[in-house]
């Protein structure tokens, strides 16, 4: 087989787009897990006791320094009874939480000390301090960074194909193997990534400018 077969490209496109739905689902849910868990970790990282902060930081450092692919394959091999897509979303979310927690931490550190002191002066409970004063200011600043991590995660979702989640690359690979048309399948999958991620990153850039970075 030589050259680029346009018919094969036409055949594979619907399959790739069907896989794209799964890819998108994994990205959205994964980002949600990363956003919530990252926030929890960042808040836990400011706990008064070292018995909390040191282990939390160590675990996050470990997760951040080790390959996502190994974490995914390891988790899928260990929890054999759980559905691959669920494992994928959770592992993606935890892996990225190791990054987003640092982003939140920077955002929380960026809230002026006077705000904390004002909360004390008003004798707000710790809960109210976080909910009404600190987090609204911190989260606003970190939104563009979180968005960029979502885009990064989107581009790493093909890893899920390895644990047999039937997302875009899985479909492309299967079509490629069945029809010996890897060229068309992978080219189209790559283009879909480009078409989806580039405008989103432009949007994030705009958001960054608007929030004054």
């Amino acid at each position: 087989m030589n050259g680029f077969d346009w018919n094969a490209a036409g055949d594979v496109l619907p399959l790739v787009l069907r896989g794209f739905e799964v890819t998108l689902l994994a990205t959205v849910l994964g980002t949600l897990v990363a956003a919530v868990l990252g926030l929890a970790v960042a808040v836990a990282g400011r706990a008064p006791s070292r018995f909390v902060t040191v282990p939390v930081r160590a675990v996050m450092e470990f997760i951040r320094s080790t390959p996502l692919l190994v974490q995914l394959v390891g988790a899928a091999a260990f929890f054999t009874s759980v559905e691959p897509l669920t494992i994928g979303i959770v592992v993606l979310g935890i892996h990225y939480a190791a990054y987003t927690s640092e982003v939140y931490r920077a955002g929380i550190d960026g809230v002026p000390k006077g705000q904390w002191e004002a909360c004390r002066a008003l004798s707000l409970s710790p809960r109210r301090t976080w909910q009404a004063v600190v987090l609204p200011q911190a989260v606003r600043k970190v939104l563009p960074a979180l968005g960029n991590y979502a885009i990064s995660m989107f581009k790493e979702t093909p890893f899920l194909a390895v644990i047999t989640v039937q997302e875009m690359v899985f479909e492309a690979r299967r079509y490629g193997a069945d029809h010996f048309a890897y060229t068309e399948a992978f080219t189209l999958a790559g283009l879909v990534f480009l078409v989806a991620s580039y405008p989103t990153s432009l949007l994030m850039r705009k958001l960054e400018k608007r929030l004054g970075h």
Partner: protein
Amino acid sequence: MSDFFSALSDNLPQLRSGLWVTLQATVLGSLLALLLSFVLGLMAISPMLAVRGVSRVVVEFFRGTSLYIQLFWLYYAMPPLTGYELTPLLCGVVAFGLNYGAYGSEVVRGAINSVPRAQHEAAVALNLTPVQRMRKVILPQAWVQMIPPFTNLLIQLLKCTPLLWLISAADLMTVIQQLRDRTGETLTAYLTLLAVYFVLAYALTLLMNLLERTAKRRLGLPTGAGSLLRTRSAVDAVATTAGGAR
């Protein structure tokens, strides 16, 4: 538990060769990425629109299409399309180099732009040629700024090397997976594998900290005593690893 480790010690030669493949891919891939970072990064600050445009398109293309796809494209799609076939390891090196080179070029561009304007002007006033300006004045200062984000990219690249397993390049992951299949000790095997990557990542971070120290010392900047052992800052990674246009 002991089964896995006795299998491990019985298979040290394979383990060593797997580690060697992973290290080769990391080192060669990052060298290619470094080269491309400078080429694309310097192109991005060129006064000529066409040169800047080419750099922009190349960078957005390699950042926008997933690394995974690029690797598979080189391995599966390129041979039938062009007739050339790369070894799996070389596929990895090229894909890692192109992808991280695109991210790295943004680091180079940003670092050069962050050197104060007055430094450019002083170099012009001293009648230095453009090449001298870059080599003697701008780059030494920009280089110090580049090292921390480069460290992040290097670790990211290391973390992508298990992808070699998927294109049958007998890397570290492949070897450990074989041992797992033989002994059936899933948890031990994967935790060991993660630990090895963690040690590798930490070792690379230390090396890069050493490099940063030397670069800072050359500029006469203070180097803190604890700076060598610190881990990398994850927040830098936002600027360098996060997707798309910036």
